């Protein structure tokens, strides 16, 4: 009996560890959710950006993360330039891309596509929030509001954005337009009087200028613009046109009512939490 005890013990231990490993693998298999890789631009505060610890954050990131949680998806955010992200989406390296405010080409825009627009084999969800264009400028005795008031001035705008195309169409003959890859650079130029005004979304102005007290520092004021027609390609999520199920699921969660609030309101109501990259 004493001779068979050690081998028996070893056998029992082996069975125990084997059982543990099997259980662990089974648990992992049970807890594993489907992954969704979503592309976001690296530095588009307050909509989508990465922190110093490389964690995705922002208004739209919070909305998408919330949707992923509802759909029980494990969302991973991947950073990059917008065009690269779109290519990665088309090459099936990503499942979706957050579209902040890129402009449609004029010929496509002229088709007056309704959502979901079919651009480059992509489809867009309904906007997650509504952009509110405002002019931010230095405090003057009489604030500029009408296009004629901007005659001879220099207006800064996000490069390739819907605001850019709007300015080209409506202010191109009046004012000098200066486009910036990063809108914050336009604000810096505005603060130091290198340009006269910046056209941007109210949420951006609220989060990046007014909450930081930069307006007091540089005497900046905001002038709202009357309702203008902008291309419907802002604040959406793009997926491949063949991923109809994913589009349907995301649309059902992201915009269940079809009435999107202004982004500046969403900025105040949606808690911006850390999200996994």
């Amino acid at each position, binding site marked *: 009996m004493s001779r068979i005890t050690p081998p028996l013990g070893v056998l029992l231990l082996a069975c125990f560890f084997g059982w543990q490993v099997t259980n662990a693998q089974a648990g992992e298999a049970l807890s594993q959710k489907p992954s969704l890789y979503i592309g976001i631009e690296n*530095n588009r505060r307050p909509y989508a950006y990465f922190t110093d610890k490389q964690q995705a954050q922002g208004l739209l990131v919070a909305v998408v993360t919330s949707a992923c949680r509802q759909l029980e998806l494990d969302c991973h955010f991947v950073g990059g*330039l917008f065009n690269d992200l779109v290519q990665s989406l088309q090459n099936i390296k990503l499942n979706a891309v957050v579209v902040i405010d890129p402009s449609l080409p004029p010929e496509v825009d002229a088709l007056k596509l309704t959502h979901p627009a079919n651009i480059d084999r992509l489809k867009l969800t309904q906007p997650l929030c509504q952009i509110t264009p405002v002019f931010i400028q230095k405090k003057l005795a009489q604030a500029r509001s009408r296009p004629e008031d901007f005659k001879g001035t220099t207006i800064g705008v996000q490069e390739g954005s819907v605001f850019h195309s709007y300015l080209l169409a409506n202010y191109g003959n009046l004012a000098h337009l200066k486009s910036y*890859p990063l809108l914050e650079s336009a604000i810096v130029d505005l*603060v130091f009087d290198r340009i006269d005004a910046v056209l941007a979304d109210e949420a951006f102005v609220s989060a990046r200028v007014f909450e930081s007290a*930069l307006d007091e520092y540089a005497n900046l004021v905001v002038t709202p613009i009357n309702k203008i027609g902008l291309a419907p390609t802002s604040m959406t999520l793009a997926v491949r046109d063949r991923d109809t199920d994913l589009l349907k699921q995301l649309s059902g969660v992201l915009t269940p009512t079809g009435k999107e609030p202004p982004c500046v309101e969403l900025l105040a109501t949606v808690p911006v939490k850390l999200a996994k990259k």
Partner: protein
Amino acid sequence: MPTISTRSPNQYRQSWIYISLLCLLLCCQSVVYGEEKTAVTPSSSPTPAVEQKTTPVATDKNKSATGTEEDTEAKTQAQAQLENSMDNVKVIEKTLATLRKEIDSSKKGVVLNRATIKDGLDQISNQLKDAYTGLEGMRNNISTNALGLEKLKTDLSAMDAKFKDNLLELDRKITTNTSDVSSQKYLVENYAAGGYETLLKMAELSTKLEKLSQGQTLQNDQKQDQRISMIKDLNRLWVLLAVVLVSLTPLAFVLSSNREQYKPLLDGTPQHQGVLLVCLGVFIGYFIIGFGLMFGTSAGGWIGTSSYVLGEKAIEPNMTPLFAFAEFLLYQAGFAMLAALIIYTAVGRQFSGAAHLLLALFVGAVLIPVFGHWAWAGRYITDNKGWLESAGFIDTGGSTTVHSVAAWFALVIVWQLSAQTPPSHDPDQPENEPVYSASAVLFLWLSALGLTTGTLSISSNQIETTMLNVGLAGSAGGIMAFLHYRYFRIDRGHITRALGGFVTGLVAVAASAPTLSFLEALVVGAVAGIIHNGGFILLRKYFLQRSWQVRTAYIVAIHGGGGIWGSLCVALFGSKGLFTLPDFTQLVSQLEGIAIALLYSVVLANVVFFLFTLNKKRFSVIS
């Protein structure tokens, strides 16, 4: 190779068999020829079947080498087939030659068939010749083309390898450059974002600094408010202390003892008790009417129109007093009291107690307040100035406003009274009787400290210098008057003149004490002492010659002469710097104030005297 015998009974059948064989060979040859043509035709696809199956990715050297070997093998096979075909053609040619010989040696009975066959064979022979010729040319061409193709293929392989290498290198460079551009763009964006964050930090710091500065300013403001509040409290305390000092004035007059003063008034009231009556009368008159006329809302700078009897809020709501009502009234009542006591002392026993009471009421209610409104209304409410003050007249301590006005008023009263009494000569030389005793002078000194400094702010650092100037001027006046009498007029009145000169110095310096330097104060006082003596002599010689008018002469010399000199000193010594040139504009204003005071007092004194004379028995006005 089968042979055809012309002697066989089946000659005809054998011939056709040979022809059939020949045709079969020709067919084989044509098939071979077709394949060769397909293989060597330049217009056909140069890419072998193997190459067509190869993907663009599989273009490495190994596969290229394999392709070349297969090409060579296929070419060898084609060459072999061509050689075989040529051999076959030669066999056919030989067979045809043999066949022709046998036909020639065949029987003549079959001429027709033989001719037909011969023609067919000739045609075949010709065709074969042509085919052979064509094949030879073709063979040469194929050989030439094969060599060219070999060379071309070699060149192409070399070019293809080089091109592929270049293309790959170019592709790698483009990919590298694209990555670099993306990285640089990302870095630029990061730097721009970092710059913006720096700007935000800067704005935040600026805002914090501003708030800190505002907080500091707020703290400073609070401290300043506390300091201002404390200074206000101290000022109020100082005014109350000045009230106490000013209240010593009646005590000085009570203690002014001389032989004349021991005599009672016309109605039997002791003179020192008459002081009390005067004080009560002037205080009531000043409170009920006088203060309102003096510091009420001005009517064109001529008279105050407010009444403070029912409360201190009698002025316009937009007017803010500089002082609290009660303490300022008490303080100003001291001036009115001083004026009334000057008049009381000057008139003395010529009036009854009741007359003095009425006179004191008048002084407190009208005489001092009206002129005081012209010269001093702005003291209580800055924007409520009287016309004389607006014209530039300055009288800080009341040299003219109180002392001169009272002195001229008393002079006129006494001068009018003197007209109704016969001249007399006092053998006791009453000139040597001082109007103010030593103790009275000391109390007047204390009182003068209150009168000259009561409205000064505690924070102005002027109070102590003003007090010092008052003391210096009084002392200089007293000493100068004493020395003048000691060395220029030999009599017993040295100390009397010294006491009078001291008070004259106090009166003179009152107008400009806060603005004088110490030396200037000494000069002002010294000159005042001389003026006292000279004024007394002149008054006694020309205006007040009666023995009972000695006190009046002293009073007028002290308060009238000292008052005029003091008011002039504002322009003479009040300018910045020590003994600088006088401010002539100010001098004109001062002269204007002095003249107005004189005129005002004379007019009012005559009016009052006239009113008193209307019922002199009732008030026992005149002795």
